[in-house]
């Protein structure tokens, strides 16, 4: 039926997920790590943030299962596939994707945003939307009532699903529902998870119920549903936030430890390298590198079979560039920490036993630096998601055809001068971004508090 397509970024994302799962299984058997993660699990705020993040990650993963649909073909002829690459999320949201309007329309509107000359009329009117509120027919008196009904229906649906989830969980764990929702029960903080899930499910219910008949967040300039664009942007944000760190970590860890442990000219060389790189202002270095990357991509159109592949390559290149420019800070931190560790007794004992240099670095230094690596990883995420929007504004972000918060804001910005203002694209992009970044920041704080030995004081 369909032809699966694995873009490079999809593959990397799945490798990343697999690595996280493997690391979780491994960490469960390490006492110190289990204790630290246990502190995170007991932290209500962290668990609530993790729930929000998990929802975002789920949407991002659904959006990473790409395929090309099969075109209706003559019987007997060879199967042919569509040029556009879609994802599982597109399939789920095919209603939203296909019900485009002509141009701007406000959230929940039934008419277009701008007047247009109608065919059999001399006056300029607001034309009816093709899809938004189409089920109402000619009589618009029931517009508000219809929305209210849909909202309450969505709330009811969300509530039912939430109750099902809660009761299923309680039956599985063998606790009473009332018991679970009490404050201060021992073990991992499950209560905040369910309390966070409730509003999320309610919002989902409302979005589905209202989105069936209207454009919840309105439509943009070319009539695309803004809710659909916002959901699609999540994947881009997640990719930039995670893959960038993935790119930079090996480099930062290797060079940081080498500089700190080996010392001598190796240290000088590595220090020179990162001082030089970090002395160039970040945005400018990124801008210069992205400009050059654009030239390469534009002069080699033959490398990419589809436009999706080209956009994907550009996204990956952006992650690579961001990674290359941001490893210096972590490398410096790791070098300093290695310098301290090198003088400790257990390292000197290992040296006295004749353990080789690289074995010491791998077995004694590296495990003691992992908390810094982890903290850097979670702390950088939110900054990178925010940076994407800024870079897209500067014109050195993702490919203009890639849907991202940055491209959404960038296109909506042009319409700010319009009277009355077209505010909904901006509002949607900013609120989704705020939810993602806030959750990431809160989670990162909890992880840092749990893993940083200094913070426990």
């Amino acid at each position: 039926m369909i032809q699966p397509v694995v873009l490079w970024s999809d593959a990397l994302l799945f490798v990343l997920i697999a690595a996280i799962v493997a690391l979780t299984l491994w960490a469960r058997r390490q006492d110190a790590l289990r204790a630290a993660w246990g502190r995170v699990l007991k932290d209500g705020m962290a668990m609530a943030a993790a729930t929000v993040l998990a929802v975002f990650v789920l949407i991002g993963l659904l959006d990473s299962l790409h395929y090309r649909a099969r075109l209706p073909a003559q019987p007997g002829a060879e199967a042919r596939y569509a040029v556009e690459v879609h994802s599982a999320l597109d399939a789920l949201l095919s209603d939203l994707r296909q019900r485009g309007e002509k141009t701007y329309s406000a959230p929940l509107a039934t008419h277009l945003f701008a007047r247009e000359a109608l065919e059999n009329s001399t006056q300029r009117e607001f034309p009816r939307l093709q899809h938004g509120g189409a089920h109402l027919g000619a009589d618009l008196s029931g517009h508000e009532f219809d929305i209210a009904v849909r909202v309450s229906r969505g709330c009811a649906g969300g509530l039912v699903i939430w109750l099902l989830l809660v009761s299923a969980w309680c039956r599985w764990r063998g606790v009473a529902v009332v018991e679970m929702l009490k404050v201060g029960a021992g073990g991992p903080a499950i209560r905040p998870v369910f309390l966070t899930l409730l509003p999320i499910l309610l919002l989902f219910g409302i979005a589905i119920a209202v989105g069936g008949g209207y454009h919840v967040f309105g439509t943009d300039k070319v009539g695309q549903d803004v809710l659909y664009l916002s959901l699609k942007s999540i994947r881009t944000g997640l990719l930039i936030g995670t893959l960038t760190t993935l790119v930079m970590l090996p480099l930062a860890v290797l060079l940081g430890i080498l500089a700190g442990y080996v010392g001598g000219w190796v240290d000088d060389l590595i220090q020179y390298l990162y001082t030089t790189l970090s002395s160039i202002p970040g945005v400018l270095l990124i801008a210069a590198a992205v400009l050059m990357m654009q030239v390469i991509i534009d002069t080699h159109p033959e490398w990419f079979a589809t436009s999706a592949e080209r956009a994907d390559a550009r996204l990956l290149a952006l992650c690579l560039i961001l990674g290359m420019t941001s490893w210096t800070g972590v490398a410096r931190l790791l070098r300093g920490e290695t310098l301290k560790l090198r003088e400790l007794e257990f390292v000197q004992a290992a040296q006295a036993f004749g353990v080789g240099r690289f074995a010491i670095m791998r077995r004694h230094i590296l495990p003691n630096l992992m908390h810094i690596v982890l903290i850097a990883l979670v702390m950088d995420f939110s900054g990178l998601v925010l940076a994407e929007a800024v870079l897209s504004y500067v014109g050195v972000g993702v490919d203009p055809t890639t849907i991202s918060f940055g491209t959404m804001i960038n296109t909506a910005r042009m319409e700010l001068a319009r009277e009355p203002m077209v505010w909904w694209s901006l509002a949607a992009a900013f609120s989704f971004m705020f939810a993602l970044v806030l959750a990431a920041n809160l989670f990162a704080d909890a992880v840092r508090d749990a893993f940083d030995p200094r913070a426990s004081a």
Partner: protein
Amino acid sequence: MLAYIIRRLLYAIPILIGVNLLTFALFFVVNTPDDMARMQLGVKRVTPEAIQKWKAERGYDQPLVWNSAAAGTATVTETIFFSKSVRMFVGDFGRADDGRDIAREIATRMGPSLAIAVPTFVLGLFVAISFALLLVFFRATALDISGVVLCVAMMSISGLFYIIGGQWLVSKVWHLVPISGYSGGVDAAKFLILPVIIGVIGGIGASTRWYRTIFLEEITRDYVRTARAKGLPERVVLFRHVLRNALIPILTGVVVVIPTLFMGSLLTESFFGIPGLGSYTIDAINAQDFAVVRSMVFIGSVLYIVGLLLTDLSYTLADPRVRLQ
């Protein structure tokens, strides 16, 4: 002291050479000038003559690093590397695509950039430190906790939102100040006040939290306990003792930024239409004016290195125990 400064300045030279080589590699080796010409001219107008003309206009028609056609020292000087990269050391940045001299452009645009960056920086520093001290004074109370939550929330909002939201609210709804633009003299104030306030608000979350951590770390020290044991009121402990001792970690992060204030702010300047270096850089990036971007990269790193040097020097002022040698 003087010997230290000289040594540090000498140390800066290899770094600047490294930056120079890096930008040269990025702009001329990764992509040949032919590639750049093809991209800028567009698909339709690419002919060998057009490429030659484009390169000749910009002085890119010389060999990269070695001109075998020339004689004597000209084998080195009549090359792209020498004319475009080495000459940046003496302040010759060449011409932008619109034919203007980049060095002069930078000199005239520095004023507006500073007019925005300096007040933002000073005010931001003052507000953030005051807030952090307030939170530390009321530490572990509801005020402290809600303050920290507010900081995290403010950190999580995109900087673009502050600018767009501020412009909309203050200029469009309240009509208090013009939405964008710039003029010289006293008149500039009405154009500058909004960007400065937005800049301060946008940076407040992250910096307040950072200063709060520094103060909290300082407050666990022995000398603080001694001061309290002497019976000093908490107010005096905080302002007289903790604030002064926390200066060292604060200086590390703050002084290094001062020289880069010259570069201006990319976002603020372009949103508010201020003719500074930030908007100059953005316009150059959008127009793919490689010469300007290259110059700004170089200037940026020079200023950063100056910042590092100033940081070291400021330690001696803040902490008499630090001796530079």
